[in-house]
Each structure stands twice: as structure tokens, then as C-alpha cells.
């Protein structure tokens, strides 16, 4: 039953579960359990995330900001290992910052996405990172690129990620329509993330939203008591 691969994240858990002197959470990685999503609209993108970071069952941070700026009009949504995604985002920020100032132009979202993909694919054995890259550039307007675990890269008009995303695929498939306005996108994102937070134990806290367009970035937070309420009973 011991894990064969030394890189398996569960290897550590099996070792210390036999050890009563050390609590289980010391061997569990800090994870942005998460629900993240990003949508394209005509003129920009809307991104959203929950705010829960867990070490095992303990919520290490209940007000996490998983929407990370990479450049003036490019953000990423982080899911997976908190440490891995922070480190990758920092490196990509460096690479994109240098690239952009050499070009003397704002960078393309596709460029940022490819930099993420390059790191995520090269180090795929050591990393656990599911990232959505979203932003606006002059050439193609609002764009969302998905870089899941393993280091694939694909552009999608709508993308969800993180452990909570499984619960809202159906919701997104039935409620997303092409050519929505920015406000419709914001409403949809808030609703979807709330639903996922309700069902996924690793997602919760507040809903963080951001919209990115040529005019800049607008950020907002929806607090617990202001979240849309759903009930099936």
C-alpha cells in the first residue's frame, strides 16, 4: 500500500499517520482547495474565486486572495498547492515583467499563459498547480487560458477550476450563454462560486471578483452574509 513514486504527495501522510507524536496536519500540504473561474466577455474578462486555504481540515486562511496580478491587465487564479502556485506566479511575474519592458509594450495574455504552461509542464512531476490565466490585451481583447495540472494549455471562453469546480460544471453548462455583458458575467460568477462553496468543504469564506478590460482592473468582495442564498431543502 506504500506509494511507489517518491513524488507522491500522499507518501508523507502514510509515514506520519503511524506517528502519534506528530499531528496529521504537519505532513499535509497547504492547499488552496478552491473554486476558481474565469469568463470572457466582449471587451474583457471576469474572474472569481473563493477565499479558503486549508492544511488538512484546518482553515489556515479564510480570507485568501487567490486572484493574483501578473501584470497591469493580466491576472491568474490559483488552485492546488498554495506554495507551488505562489512560486510559479512570482517567477512568471518576473519573466513577463522583463519581457514586457524589453518589448516596450504591454504583454499579451497568451504570452503569460505560455510562460505558466512552460513552468507547469517542465516541473510537472514536482508541482500541484491548476491555474487560470485571464486578462485583456490589445490584440485579442479579453481572453481566458486554462493551465491545469500536468501543464496543458487551452483557451476557453469559460473555465472553472479547483476542487469545488466539479459541483458547478452542470450549472455553468446550463447558465452560460455567449455574448453576455460584464454585469451578467459578474452575477454568474458570484452565483457559481457561491454554489461551489456551499458543497465543497475545501472552498468557502468570501467571494472575490475582478473584472479586467482596457480601462483597467476593478476588484470587489462579496462577504458571507451578502452571498446569494440557495437551498434545496
Amino acid at each position, binding site marked *: 500500500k506504500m506509494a511507489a513514486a517518491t513524488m507522491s504527495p500522499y507518501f508523507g501522510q502514510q509515514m506520519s499517520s503511524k506517528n502519534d507524536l506528530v499531528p496529521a496536519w504537519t505532513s499535509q500540504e497547504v492547499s488552496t482547495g478552491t473554486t476558481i473561474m474565469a469568463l470572457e466577455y466582449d471587451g474583457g474578462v471576469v474572474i472569481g474565486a473563493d477565499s479558503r486555504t486549508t492544511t488538512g481540515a484546518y482553515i489556515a486562511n479564510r480570507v485568501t486572495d487567490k486572484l493574483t496580478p501578473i501584470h497591469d491587465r493580466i491576472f491568474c487564479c490559483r488552485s492546488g498547492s498554495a506554495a507551488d502556485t505562489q512560486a510559479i506566479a*512570482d*517567477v512568471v*511575474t*518576473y*519573466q513577463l515583467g*522583463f519581457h514586457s*519592458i*524589453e518589448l516596450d509594450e504591454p504583454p499579451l495574455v497568451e504570452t503569460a499563459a505560455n510562460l505558466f504552461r512552460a513552468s507547469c509542464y517542465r516541473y510537472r512531476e514536482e508541482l500541484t498547480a491548476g491555474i487560470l490565466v485571464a486578462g485583456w490585451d490589445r490584440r485579442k481583447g479579453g481572453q481566458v487560458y486554462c493551465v491545469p495540472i500536468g501543464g496543458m494549455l487551452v483557451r476557453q471562453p469559460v473555465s472553472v477550476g479547483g476542487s469545488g469546480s466539479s459541483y458547478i460544471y452542470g450549472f455553468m453548462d446550463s447558465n452560460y450563454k455567449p455574448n453576455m455583458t460584464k454585469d451578467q458575467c459578474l452575477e454568474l460568477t458570484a452565483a457559481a462560486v457561491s454554489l461551489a462553496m456551499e458543497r465543497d468543504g475545501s472552498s468557502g469564506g468570501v467571494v472575490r471578483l475582478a473584472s479586467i478590460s482596457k480601462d483597467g482592473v476593478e476588484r470587489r468582495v462579496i462577504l458571507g452574509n451578502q452571498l446569494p442564498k440557495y437551498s434545496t431543502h
Partner: protein
Amino acid sequence: MDTFCTVYCYAVSRSSPDICSLTRIYYDAGCDDLSFSASNGVVLATEKKQKSILYDEQSVHKVEPITKHIGMVYSGMGPDYRVLVRRARKLAQQYFLVYQEPIPTGQLVQRVASVMQEYTQSGGVRPFGVSLLIAGWDEDQPYLFQSDPSGAYFAWKATAMGKNYVNGKTFLEKRYNNDLELEDAIHTAILTLKESFEGQMTEENIEVGICNEAGFKRLTPAEVKDYLAAIA
């Protein structure tokens, strides 16, 4: 400046027999540039004389941004400058990656000057044939530094470099005072440049960069034209 010549000749004589002619090139190619630190910003100004009217002036720049809040200009060999610009940009990003804060101007200057010094003490290389003027804004203060081929660096309130630096500095000494605002500084910088300018000064053959709390910016030819109109 004369002491630098001697340093080159002794340190690098084996790998570079042409070192003496090199330093001559350094001086000849030195176009005039100058910079000015005002109470609320810094201005860098340089002449950019091209050898032929066929050159596309806007494709190559002397005033270059390093980060959002730091920029620089040079006097000397263009190709050597490009290497340092690239290096400086990388150093700035590296600093941010480690310290999660924009690099303070002094720190960048120290690091760039370090690189320049390295090339005076390593085998098989020659010193950079440029003097840099680095302008930055951090912690609500303007900064202006010069970095020489030896690796020595100095902070300035106002300075001039290049062919006519003696006259330039004299002119600046008369005109500098601590309370000058950025707008006046730009005006004065352009006037100083005009003193040693041969021929007609237009927005196509000078470059101006400014650095204030909003960050570093190279002025567009249109903006330079407005300032030139004011001194006409």
C-alpha cells in the same frame, strides 16, 4: 576621466591591444547628455544625432526604462549600453522576485556598477565603453546617479556628460537650485543641451525622459516639441 585611460591600458593590455584606440572611441562617440534632479522629479535629456537622414530615429532609443520607476541614458558606445540595459532590467526583476518590492534606485545602481567593475577585473573582457545616468523615484524622493566604466558611481543633483560636459556643468551650476520643479527642470535641461548643440535642435534629434511619483516615462516627440516651442 583621464585616470580611467590609464586603468584600461594596464589591466586589459594583453587581451585588447587596441585599448588605447578604444578609449578614444569612447570619447569621440560621447554625445552630450545631462540630467537634472528637481524637487518633485528627475529629467534626463540627450542629443541623438544620427549620421544620415535615412536612419529611422524612432527605432532606437537612448533613454530607456528599466522598471516602472527607474530609467537611464548613456554617453558612449551604444552596443555596450544595450547589454547593460538588459542586465539592469534582469537585476531589477530578480530583486523583486526575492524582496517583493520595487528595487530602490540606489540598489540598482550598486548592482549595475558592480557588473561594470567586474569587467575591469576579469580576463578576456574589456570595460564597458559607456557612462550611465540612472534616474529613479522611490519613497517619495527623486534620485539621480552616474555610473562610470570603472564601476564607480556617484549621486548627483544635476550633471552633464559627454563632449561638452565642462560647459554643461558650468551652465547647470549657475541655474540649479533646490526648489526647482520638474517643469522648470525640463526647460533648463533642454536649454543646457542647446548650449552645445550644433545645428537645429528638433524633437527628432533629442530625447527626454522624466521620472516622478507617477514613474519613469520617455517623452514622445510630440511632447518634446511642445517644450522646444517654449524655448524658441
